[in-house]
């Protein structure tokens, strides 16, 4: 009956490798990128170790700020759409008979089993002017001129939602599956209509899952570069493309590094909120 600390066999030989792993494998590369972000670009690309903060100050250029702003906006909209689509999906899966839950989760994850590049190209085939969607709409007589769908913000949004929806569904499913059904019944018994049961009990109690899902979708959306590159074209550059551009084309690694650290700082704000809400553990 008495709650008490319960020391289990402690396997001390298990503690040293993870500590080493965390420091070396995760810490060193991050520190290296941080160091590079304060260096200068060499004449032919490469790095010159002249300490400078210009890589950070030059981000204030309106051109870059616009790209940051567009990235933020696209990531927020992606997150909201994923939440709106992912919640009912997760709820249905969590309330399905036990043996179906695994199958449904499997269906949600299946697109991950094919190459991301290939999947994004599939969306290009669907969305381009002579693509599947326009052909279908023309055949149905709904439109008379093909629509310009590819290389718009809409195409990028579809690609991002498609790519990151499973990251929303999995933590939401975990939260909803853990939800005690008798709480739902109690609310129903206490005169709540189904919609009220949902807003007053189901939604608040799945909050850790909502937070975890939003963070897991928001962060990769913000840094995405393959999707906006292929589906957005030149018109809708995001921060991820900018970094990729600095690294692969301009070969200005210090500026690319500072960009990615500013991005990380922005992301940390979201993560701190996420940790404060105690949502960290619920993402598993």
């Amino acid at each position, binding site marked *: 009956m008495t709650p008490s600390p319960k020391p289990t066999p402690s396997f001390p030989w298990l503690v040293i490798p993870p500590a080493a792993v965390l420091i070396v494998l995760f810490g060193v590369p991050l520190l290296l990128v941080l160091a590079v972000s304060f260096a200068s670009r060499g004449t032919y690309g490469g790095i010159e170790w002249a300490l400078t903060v210009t890589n950070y100050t030059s981000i204030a250029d309106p051109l870059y700020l616009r790209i940051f702003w567009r990235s933020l906006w696209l990531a927020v909209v992606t997150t909201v759409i994923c939440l709106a689509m992912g919640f009912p999906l997760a709820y249905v899966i969590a309330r399905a008979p036990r043996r179906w839950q695994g199958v449904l989760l499997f269906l949600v994850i299946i697109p991950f089993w094919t190459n991301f590049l290939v999947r994004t190209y599939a969306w290009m085939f669907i969305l381009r002017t002579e693509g599947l969607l326009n052909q279908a709409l023309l055949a149905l007589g709904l439109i008379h001129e093909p629509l310009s769908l590819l290389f718009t913000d809409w195409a990028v949004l579809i690609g991002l939602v498609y790519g990151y929806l499973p990251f929303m569904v999995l933590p939401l499913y975990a939260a909803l599956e853990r939800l*005690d059904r*008798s*709480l739902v*019944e*109690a*609310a*129903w*018994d*206490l*005169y*709540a*209509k189904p919609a*009220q049961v949902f807003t*007053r*009990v189901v939604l*608040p*109690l799945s909050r850790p899952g909502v937070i975890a899902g939003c963070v897991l979708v928001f962060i990769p959306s913000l840094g995405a570069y393959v999707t906006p590159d292929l589906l957005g074209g030149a018109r809708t550059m995001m921060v991820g493309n900018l970094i990729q551009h600095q690294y692969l084309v301009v070969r200005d690694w210090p500026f690319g590094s500072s960009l990615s650290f500013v991005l990380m700082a922005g992301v940390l704000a979201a993560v701190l909120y996420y940790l404060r809400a105690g949502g960290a553990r619920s993402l598993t």
Partner: protein
Amino acid sequence: MDGNGNSVELREVTKRHGATVAVDRLSLTIRKGEFFSILGPSGSGKTTTLRLLAGFEQPDSGGIIIEGRHMEGVPPNRRPVNLVFQNYALFPHMTVAGNVAFGLEMQGLPQAEIGPRVTEALAMVRLAAKQDRLPAQLSGGEQQRVALARALVNHPAVLLLDEPLGALDKQLRLEMEVELKALQERVGITFVCVTHDQEEALTMSDRLAVLHQGRLLQVGTPEDIYTAPASAFVANFIGVSNGLSGRVEGIVGQHATVLVEGIGVIHAPAVPGVDAGAPVLVTVRPERLHLSRDQAPEGYQNHFAVRVAKVIYAGNETQYLLTLPNNQTWKARIPNADGAATRFHAGESAYLKWRTAEAVLLPE
């Protein structure tokens, strides 16, 4: 409200779960303002009956009438009943006061009315001081009282209770039995309580129903059921009973004589429908038996020698396992009021005695 004084009526209600019949043509009438218990072992269909009353499940056939209204198709949020869940099901993200206010808010009452009623309900269960706590900060007993307040604040016509004391410690359970019954008398609401604990059911109920495999075995006051069980199952479930199988030798007025192989003639009160020659089970409750070193009948109509097989001291009483002449084992519970001197020891011989009126005859 209907005029016949009935709060709840079940008419031939049947409910299947897959291949098993959870509730089998159950008909019950529960009167206004009574404390009614549904008693049965696991799988007897008692929880399903409660869920049918709450509206979480719909009967496959038959009708449920609550306060004169047919409940077919009426969802839980529109029924005049509230359920106290076995695990309490308190909303973990709301304070105690928030939990209690929930039902009133959902009914759309103005805040000005909700406040005083929540305060009153919490005062009733002596938890006014803890209204701003979260459920997780309360003890098991306190959570139970919040669950009660959360249901009673709505003034339901019927309060449903699912194993209300099952999760409490023994000491607390005994206190709450008395408190729950007192509460019910104070508020005057019909209580329908589901339990597997026969002591709880006997102590708290005005009337109770015994269920087994979805069927109603007996319904009546605690005394009816305790003193005149309708079947061997009820007799056993209401309190471990001793039984002897035999055949009715003769019936004279209210008196039956039963011939039991290896023991002889046993005297018991006659029951309607059991005639001479019928196979019967004579049951006597352990606490109705008398044990003495003296062979004299002392006014007991039944008496024979037994051997004490085991002695269990249990505080206010001593429990004896006795070996009968036909090698059956019976149990006797003798109060310790007379002190240690008169107690028997394992291996001793003794005389087992009981009066005719103490036995109950059940058809086999």
